[in-house]
């Protein structure tokens, strides 16, 4: 659903739901996930609906994922770094509430 301009070279590997994903330095976790073809980031805690990023700039809190074991992190506000681990919460639960 997204492709990358050729001038952006992937050189960082992160892990999304246990799978290695190659991504570019300077990416946010949200950009890395979208570039990897992931559109659904979570299920909404109240109605269970599928959600993904809306604003890409830290406002909407729709891109919440678990990052390095910490739940409810904003994927769009977290820069990628080698070995970072992302887990989606797509089972409808929202830890910590």
């Amino acid at each position, binding site marked *: 659903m997204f492709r990358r301009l050729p001038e952006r070279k992937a050189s960082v590997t992160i892990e999304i739901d246990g799978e290695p994903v190659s991504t570019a330095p300077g990416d946010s976790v949200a950009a890395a996930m979208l570039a990897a073809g992931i559109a659904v980031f979570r299920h909404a805690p109240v109605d269970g609906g599928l959600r993904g990023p809306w604003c890409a700039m830290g*406002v909407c809190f729709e891109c919440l994922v678990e990052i390095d074991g910490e739940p409810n992190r904003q994927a769009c506000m977290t820069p990628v770094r080698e070995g970072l681990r992302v887990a989606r919460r797509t089972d409808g639960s929202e830890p910590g509430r």
Partner: protein
Amino acid sequence: MSVDLVIVGAGPAGMAAAVEAAEHGLSVTVLDDQPEPGGQIYRGIERAGPELTAILGEEYEAGRELAADFRSARIDYLPNSAVWRLDAGARIAFSREGSASTVSARRVLIATGAMERPMPIPGAERPGVMGAGAAQVLLKASGLVPAGRIVLAGSGPLLLLVGCQLLDAGAEVAAVLETTAGGDYLDAAPTLPRALAGWRDLARGVAMKRRLRRAGVAFRSGVRGLAATGQSVRFDGGEIACDLLLLHEGVVPQTHLSRQAGLAHRWRPEQRHWAPVADALGRTAEETLLVAGDAGGIAGARAASLSGRVAARLAAGVDPGRLIAALDRERAMRPLLDRLFRPHTALPADEALVCRCESVTAGDIRQAVRDGAMGPNQLKAFARVGMGPCQGRMCGLAAAEVIASERGLPVEEVGSFRIRPPVKPVTLGELASMEGEAADAEAL
């Protein structure tokens, strides 16, 4: 820690203010929630290669020099900092890399910029629907170009700009659905006298629309009844299949911090948003708090950097001089654009999610009003609107509009959410990391 000036935000206003203030000998700390300077307008400018700058054009490229000046200025720049409390006494609490701190200043410049106005049409929360500005951010920051068929819907100059940029990036833009008749005025623009303030922006709008049409993009104006299905966009009288629907209804000031600090805010009826009450130079009712850039009212990047420099000079006790006239000229462009791209006032349909965090529809809000919710703050108790992680950023404006229309009152009488600290989520671990005076209960 105490400094002369703390600047919140490293977009054009914040960067220009930091450079100017440092030149006048002030000690400056800049707190910004992004990893790099530039704000949203110049997002990723330091890493942008020739391919990207060819797509984004010279207005984007203009940010490169400012970012370079900012990097070489004698300032304390703290990227990745989420500011979650601002007191009128000019004390700021923020989180950075897992721990929280406070900083005090003689003055604080609020340069938190703008955000896209949320556009609550039915289905807008589905994956495959985003802000047009969000698509532009992904392009700027990561060189991402949407694959598949794209439809843009809404109004405002950015809608056309993003359409053109995506075309230049090789994307397939199928249609532009304009909710206003505003775009039609662009067709008449070449006949307007060139002396008219804002003519240049209008001419750009005309050129963009022509470019899109030539590329075979379908246009519809005055579109009503928009709804996203995830695979298509529906509207009164039609449906277009698309892989990505980009919505845009203009940008609005980010006011959470200025509100939380206790500043008064004024409703701007021409653009249907709130802005902190400040004079033309960015001075507020609190001597310690200044506002610059789009956080004080939408005027664009050039005006933002000028207003940042003006605020920095005020903080340094230096006469802003000719900067004021330049700023006035820049702002004089806005009234025409504001009229042309006035956000349409169609209210969200009953089934549209207004509060995404708590999954509350416009219909739920209307019911709450019938049950006795008089304003946005009572709506929290009735329906939990605005009580999720986004803290009302996504629903505040639309919820107030719905209440106002149900009650037959102007929005300014209905009011807005009261914003309390922390304005960004803070973990207990971050709070526990605070030391000394900062850790006393009063800081929270």
